[in-house]
């Protein structure tokens, strides 16, 4: 708290140095909490086969069992292990969330950068993006899925496409503000090619906002997947996913509440973790926003 206990660190090279987790945790606790929680979830999901039972095994004699040593969260209406299904369901949620965020970021950057630099492309594509934004995400995803039939790959695509407008708008606006900076003009003046200037001088400055937006997209994608699965148009029903579980167990809520609460709470925690990480990153990248809020 005093000046003495917090000496100003002099970094002679001027390079940004990662000075350890404790310091990050003190300054930006959200990043550490959200990131840590997300990392934990990913590890648990990836290691699922090592400690969780078979999520698909049905046992008609053990329907709607309460929690026990054998099945920690009890069993569902078909006698399946709720704990195993919840853990394996995390794989679906996280995969859909992360891949959709990556896909939306990639597509959004591509569209946004070109739109930021080419007025003709901008006029056409950004109007299409506006149109996409006016359609509710879930509705658009349902429409896309109904064109091909269910499947995880098409589900990811269907969730990614409605997310692209927000990312491409963000990137476009960042490009528009950076392209007028004198160092961009200076680089062009030095004979650099436009794609190189875009890559070296314009794209890097969009990364902070892109990362924050990706976190928001990721959380949104996880919720959309759960919603679509709940409605029966998402992940095929034989694959355990949180949306599927809540959907098939909701009739037994009074008898076996964990069949609904386990995936529900996991869903909430995962989305919370991603959102915390996103908020933390925003504060980390934009110190002014943080100061203003206080």
């Amino acid at each position: 708290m005093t000046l003495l206990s917090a000496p100003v660190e002099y970094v002679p090279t001027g390079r940004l140095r990662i000075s350890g987790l404790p310091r990050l945790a003190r300054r930006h606790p959200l990043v550490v909490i959200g990131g840590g929680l997300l990392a934990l979830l990913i590890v648990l999901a990836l290691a699922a086969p090592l400690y969780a039972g078979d999520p698909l095994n049905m046992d008609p004699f053990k329907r709607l069992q309460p929690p026990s040593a054998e099945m920690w969260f009890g069993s569902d209406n078909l006698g399946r292990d709720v704990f195993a299904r919840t853990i394996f369901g995390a794989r679906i949620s996280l995969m859909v969330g992360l891949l959709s965020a990556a896909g939306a970021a990639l597509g959004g950057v591509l569209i946004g950068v070109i739109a930021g630099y080419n007025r003709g492309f901008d006029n056409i594509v950004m109007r299409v993006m506006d149109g996409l934004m006016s359609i509710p995400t879930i509705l658009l995803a349902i429409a896309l899925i109904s064109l091909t039939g269910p499947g995880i790959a098409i589900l990811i695509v269907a969730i990614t496409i409605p997310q692209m407008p927000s990312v491409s708008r963000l990137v476009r606006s960042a490009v528009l503000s950076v392209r007028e900076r004198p160092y961009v003009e200076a680089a062009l003046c030095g004979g650099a090619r436009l794609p190189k200037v875009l890559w070296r001088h314009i794209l890097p400055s969009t990364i902070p906002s892109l990362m924050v937006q990706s976190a928001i997209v990721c959380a949104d994608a996880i919720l959309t997947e759960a919603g679509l699965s709940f409605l029966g148009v998402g992940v095929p029903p034989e694959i355990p996913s949180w949306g599927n579980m809540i959907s098939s167990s909701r009739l037994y809520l009074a008898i076996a509440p964990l069949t609904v609460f386990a995936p529900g709470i996991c869903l909430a925690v995962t989305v919370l973790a991603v959102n915390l990480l996103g908020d933390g990153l925003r504060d980390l990248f934009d110190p002014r926003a943080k100061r203003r809020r206080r």
Partner: protein
Amino acid sequence: MLMQKSAGNDVLLDVRDLETHFVGDESTTRALGGISFQVKKGETLGVVGESGCGKSVTALSILRLLPKMNARTVGGEVRFHGRDLLELSDREMRQIRGDQIAMIFQEPMTSLNPVYTVGRQIAEAVQIHTKASRSVAMAKAQEMLRLVRIADPERRVNNYPHEMSGGMRQRAMIAMALACSPELLIADEPTTALDVTIQAQILRLIADLKERTGTAVMFITHDLGVVAETCQRVIVMYAGSIVEQANVIDLFARPAHPYTQGLMRSVPDQRRGRQRRLPEIPGIVPSLREPIVGCSFAPRCPFAIDICREKTPILRDVGSSHAAACWRAEEVMGA
């Protein structure tokens, strides 16, 4: 004296009737109304005029760096080594930019990318035009920083722009511009954003480097003091046209255009005492959206007579290597 040293037939840049328009939704602005001038090898040409008279547009037209959206160079030639730059492909133009013609800008604070080290940015400029490896280019960057007299270049190459002062950043910009030993350096108000002492240092540095490398410099400024100190020949621009062209001694001794006279009168002079208000040129710069009838300076000119409002004066000789676009140039010189 200075003229004779650099005189000769070796014209480096020959601009003829360069005309640039800005096309808007409702109107077209004639930013450059057909200007012609030459830059000889190794000389320093000053380009002066008030804001919006077309100084920077001239520079950017030469380099073809104006926004393609609304700027059109509608006529004229820009001959560099005899080749018309306006005819070159984008690819050929890129090879000239930074390599044979380099430019330094007004804002040293923002002309360097804040996320890369200064050394890396200079090295990059080198690598664009040569096949130098990364390490060779970095060595060159260090050498360039030493050339522009930045102390401790070994350490400074790894500095980010925010770790440098304004003067150092402008030096780094100059290092970057000169890294490929261009034949022509366009300096667009390189000292405007700096304080007076640093300004003097930078001017001395540019003059010194010019001497050593033989680079011709086109010096864009609105500061007549800077012109007097650094340039051999001067062109004075007003409303997108050249109104006077002369070697620096003649220009200051006998300005032949009322606008030039007005500019000189509005420079503060210690000898005049301090109680007097600084004389200004009355009126404002004419809008370039409407065609101008007669002399563009006539509405503000104390010498204006009827012919000035009716017929546009063309640049004509009023002495040896001294030209002015004024109907009454001789009388103005005598005044």
